[in-house]
C-alpha cells in the first residue's frame, strides 16, 4: 500500500520527538493505580475492614457516580479499581487525545507534515505511524499496570482485566482523535471535540451506573468498566472498544484520503473584511481567539453539572438505608451526605475548569512563541496592557464557568428536591472555588512572565493538586502535603461554614503572583521566532 509508505520512519520520528512526553505520562499513569494497591491495603488491612468498606463507601451511589460500578468491592483489587479506576480512565483518555492530536493535526498545522509528505511518504503514513506508537504505548501501559498489581499480590486475572480495560480506553480515544484530527482544520478543534467526548463518556457512564446501567453501554469508559476486574473479569466487553477503534480509524483514513492537505472537512468561509469594534479592543480580541473553547466549556460544565446534580438525591435515599455510610463520611453528623456529594461534584468541576483557565492563561506563551505578540507589541500597546487583557479573559472565565457549573448542579438538584433555593446555594458554593482556580492561573502567569520555558510546569502543579485532593486519603499523603492543594483550602461547601480567610488569602496570593509575572514579562526579552 503506497499510502502507507514511510509509516515505520514516521513511527520512529514520533517516538523520538515524544520520548520524554510518553515517559512522564506512562510513569504517572502506571504509578497511580499500582501504588494505590499498597496504600489501600494499609487502609483496609483485614477482610473485616474490606467488608465494612463494601457495605458503606463501596455501595454509595455517590461514589458509584464518581468512580463507576463497584463490582468487587469486597476484595482489595476491587477497591483499587473502584477508588482509582474512574480517574485513571479519564487520564488515560486525555493522554491519548493529546498524543494523537499533537503528532497529527498540530504538526500539519505547523507545516511540518508538508515537508515530510513531499518525500516518498504515503498519505496515511503520519497518522499510521502516530497510531502505531500510541497504541503501543497503551499496550505498555496496560501491561505495566497489570504486572505492577500482580507484583503487589493481586490476582492475575483481575489485574490483567484491569490493565486491558485501560488499554482499551486508550485505544478508543486515540482512534477517536485520529478522526477528529482529520475533521478539524486546527489542532485546537481536534482536542476540543475529542475532549468533549471524554467528558461525555464520563457523564454518560455516571448516569448509567447510578441508573439501570443501560447508558453505561454508550460510553467507552463504561465498556472498559464492564470487564468487571476482580469480580468475574470478563473479556468479551473489550470487543466493543476494539470494534469501535477499527471503525473510527477506518473513518479517519477515509476522510484523510478525500481531503486536501492542510484542510479539514468544512471549507473555511470568507470572513469580514474589516474588524468589528469588539475586535479592536484587546480584551475583545482575546475573547475572539478563545471564543470556541469558551462556548464549548460553558456548555460542557453546565451539562456536566446537570447530570451529576440529578443523581445527588439518590444519596439521600441510601443514607436512610445505611447508617454506616453516614458514619464513615460525616462523623460529626453535621453535613448531609447529599451536601458532601454535591461538594465533591463541584470540586471535580472546579478542577476541570482550572484546567481550562490554566490553558487559557498559557495561551499567552503560545501567542508569543508563534510570533503573534511581536506585531502587537510593536504597536502602541504596552506589555502590561497586552498581558492584563489576556489575563482578564481566564480570570473572568473562571467565575463565569464556576457559576455555570453551579447553576447546572443547582437546577438539577432544585427540580428533584422541589426547592428553588438550592440554585443560589449551589451557585455560591461553586463560585467559592474561584480563588483556588485563580491561584493556578497566577502560578501560570508568574512562570510565563519570568521564565516562559518553564510555564508548562503549571500543569504539574495542577495535576499534583488534583491527585492530592482526590487521592490524598488513598495514598495517605501527610496532611500538610494535601493542604498544599489550593482546592483543599476552599471551605467545604455546600453545607460547611463559609470561612472567608483562606479565600481572601488565595485571591490576594493569586493577584500577587500574577502581578509579579506581569512585571517579569515587562523586564524580559520577547521570545522571537526568527
Amino acid at each position, binding site marked *: 500500500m503506497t499510502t502507507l509508505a514511510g509509516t515505520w520512519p514516521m513511527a520512529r520520528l514520533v517516538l523520538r520527538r515524544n520520548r520524554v512526553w510518553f515517559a512522564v505520562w506512562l510513569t504517572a499513569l502506571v504509578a497511580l493505580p499500582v501504588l494505590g494497591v499498597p496504600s489501600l491495603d494499609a487502609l483496609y488491612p483485614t477482610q473485616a475492614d474490606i467488608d465494612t468498606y463494601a457495605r458503606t463507601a463501596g455501595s454509595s451511589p455517590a461514589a458509584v457516580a464518581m468512580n463507576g460500578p463497584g463490582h468487587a468491592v469486597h476484595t482489595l483489587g476491587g477497591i483499587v479499581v473502584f477508588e482509582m479506576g474512574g480517574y485513571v480512565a479519564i487520564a488515560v483518555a486525555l493522554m491519548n487525545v493529546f498524543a494523537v492530536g499533537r503528532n497529527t493535526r498540530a504538526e500539519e*498545522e505547523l507545516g511540518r507534515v508538508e515537508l515530510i509528505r513531499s518525500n516518498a511518504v504515503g498519505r496515511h503514513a503520519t497518522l499510521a505511524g502516530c497510531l502505531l506508537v500510541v497504541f503501543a504505548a497503551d499496550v505498555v501501559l496496560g501491561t505495566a499496570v497489570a504486572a505492577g498489581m500482580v507484583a503487589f499480590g493481586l490476582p492475575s486475572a483481575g489485574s490483567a482485566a484491569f490493565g486491558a480495560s485501560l488499554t482499551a480506553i486508550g485505544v478508543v480515544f486515540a482512534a477517536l482523535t485520529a478522526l477528529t484530527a482529520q475533521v478539524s*482544520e*486546527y489542532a485546537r478543534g481536534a482536542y476540543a471535540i475529542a475532549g468533549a467526548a471524554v467528558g461525555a463518556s464520563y457523564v454518560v457512564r455516571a448516569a448509567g451506573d447510578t441508573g439501570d446501567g443501560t447508558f453505561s453501554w454508550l460510553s467507552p469508559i463504561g465498556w472498559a468498566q464492564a470487564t468487571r476486574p476482580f469480580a468475574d473479569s470478563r473479556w468479551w466487553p473489550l470487543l466493543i472498544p476494539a470494534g469501535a477503534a477499527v471503525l473510527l480509524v477506518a473513518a479517519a483514513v477515509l476522510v484523510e484520503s478525500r481531503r486536501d492537505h492542510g484542510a479539514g472537512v468544512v471549507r*473555511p468561509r*470568507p*470572513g*469580514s*473584511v*474589516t*474588524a*468589528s469594534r469588539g*475586535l*479592536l479592543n*484587546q480584551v475583545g*480580541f482575546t475573547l*475572539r*481567539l478563545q471564543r470556541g473553547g469558551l462556548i464549548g466549556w460553558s456548555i460542557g460544565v453546565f451539562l456536566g453539572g446537570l447530570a451529576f446534580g440529578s443523581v445527588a438525591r439518590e444519596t439521600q435515599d441510601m443514607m436512610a438505608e445505611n447508617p454506616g455510610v453516614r458514619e464513615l463520611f460525616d462523623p460529626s453528623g453535621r453535613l448531609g451526605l447529599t451536601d458532601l456529594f454535591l461538594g465533591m461534584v463541584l470540586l471535580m468541576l472546579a478542577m476541570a475548569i482550572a484546567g481550562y483557565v490554566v490553558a487559557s492563561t498559557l495561551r499567552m506563551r503560545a501567542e508569543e512563541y*508563534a*510570533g*503573534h505578540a*511581536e*506585531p*502587537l*507589541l*510593536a*504597536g*502602541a*500597546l*504596552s*506589555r502590561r496592557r497586552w498581558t492584563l487583557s489576556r489575563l482578564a479573559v481566564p480570570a473572568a472565565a473562571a467565575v463565569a464557568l464556576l457559576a455555570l457549573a453551579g447553576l447546572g448542579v443547582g437546577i438539577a438538584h432544585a427540580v428533584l428536591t422541589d426547592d428553588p433555593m438550592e440554585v443560589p446555594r449551589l451557585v455560591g458554593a461553586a463560585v467559592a472555588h474561584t480563588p483556588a482556580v485563580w491561584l493556578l492561573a497566577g502560578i501560570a502567569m508568574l512562570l510565563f512572565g519570568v521564565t516562559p520555558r518553564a510555564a508548562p510546569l503549571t500543569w504539574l502543579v495542577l495535576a499534583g493538586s488534583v491527585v492530592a485532593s482526590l487521592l490524598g486519603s488513598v495514598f495517605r499523603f501527610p496532611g500538610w502535603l494535601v493542604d498544599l492543594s489550593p482546592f483543599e483550602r476552599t471551605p467545604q461547601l455546600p453545607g460547611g461554614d463559609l470561612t472567608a480567610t483562606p479565600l481572601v488569602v488565595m485571591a490576594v496570593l493569586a493577584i500577587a503572583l500574577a502581578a509579579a509575572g506581569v512585571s517579569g514579562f515587562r*523586564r*524580559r*526579552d*520577547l521570545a*522571537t*521566532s*526568527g
Partner: protein
Amino acid sequence: MSTVIDVAGLVKTFGSTRALDGLDLEVAAGEVHGFLGPNGAGKSTTIRVLLGLLRADAGRATVFGGDPWYDAVGLHRRLAYVPGDVSLWPNLTGGEVIDVLARVRGGLNDRRRAELLERFELDPSKRGRTYSKGNRQKVALVAALASDAELLLLDEPTSGLDPLMEAVFQQVITEVKTEGRTVLLSSHILAEVEALCDRVSIIRAGRAVQTGTLTDLRYLTRTAIDAQTARPADDLAILPGVHDLRVDGNRVRFDVDGDRLDETMRSLAAYGIQTLTSAPPSLEELFLRHYGDELTDEKLATAEASR
C-alpha cells in the same frame, strides 16, 4: 537633518552567542536606509532592539531620541513595523488583522488602506490560515503602509512577493520617501536597495562593516576595466591599486581601486587607448566583498563573469 535612529556600540548576547557586537547605525530623518548583511548578521536583532522587544546589554540605541525599551509605547505610535516572517492568527481574516494592528498603533488612513489593498491585490476576506507566504507579507505591509507613521522599520518586507508586487512595493516606498518619511529597509534584494536607498549600512557578525551612500561605497571599491591599447600594457601591474591584471596581446583587463582610478587611467592612456569599457561596482559586489571571508577573489571573478 535630524537623526531618527541612533545606535552606537550596541551589544546583545543570547547565552554565549554575541548577536550584536558593538553595532553602530545612524538613520537620518527622511532617508531610506538600506540595512544589509548575511543571514544571522544581526539585522532582525537590531530591529527588535529598536522596537524595545529585546533589551540591549550594552551600548546606546535611540529612536526619535527616546529609549526604545522604556518609551516603547510612545515611540511605537510614530513608527510601523513589518516583520520578516509574518505569522497571522489562523482564524482571523487579513482585513481584521490589518485593523487590529492599526488600532494598536493608533489608527490608520481608511482611504489609503483601500488603495493599498487594491494595489497589492490582497483579498482581505480570507483567513490567516489560508494565505500564502507572500500574501501574509502583504497583510503586514498594508497594515504598516496604511498608517501615517513617521518611521517604517521593514525587516525583509518583500520576501515572498512576486516581481509585480515587488514593483508595487518599490513605488509605494518611493511615495513614502517623497512624503518625507524615514525608512529602515533590511533586505537581501540588492536591486531593491539600489533603487530605493539613499544610504546603506552593511553589517557582519553583529558589527557595521561599511556605511555610506552608494556613491561613497562605490568609491571604496574596485572598477573593472577592459581596454584595447595600441601597445601591450604590460607594466600596469607595478601600479598601486591595480589587481588581477590580465594582458592578452593588445587587450588588457584589470580591476582598479576607486581612489586610484584617476592615476591608473593616465598611465593607461600612455599605451594609446583604442576601446574602453569600465564596469562600476554593483552593490552585489560590495555585498560579496563584505560578506564572507570564504569568498576568494577567484570566486568574486566567477560571480562577476556570470553576470
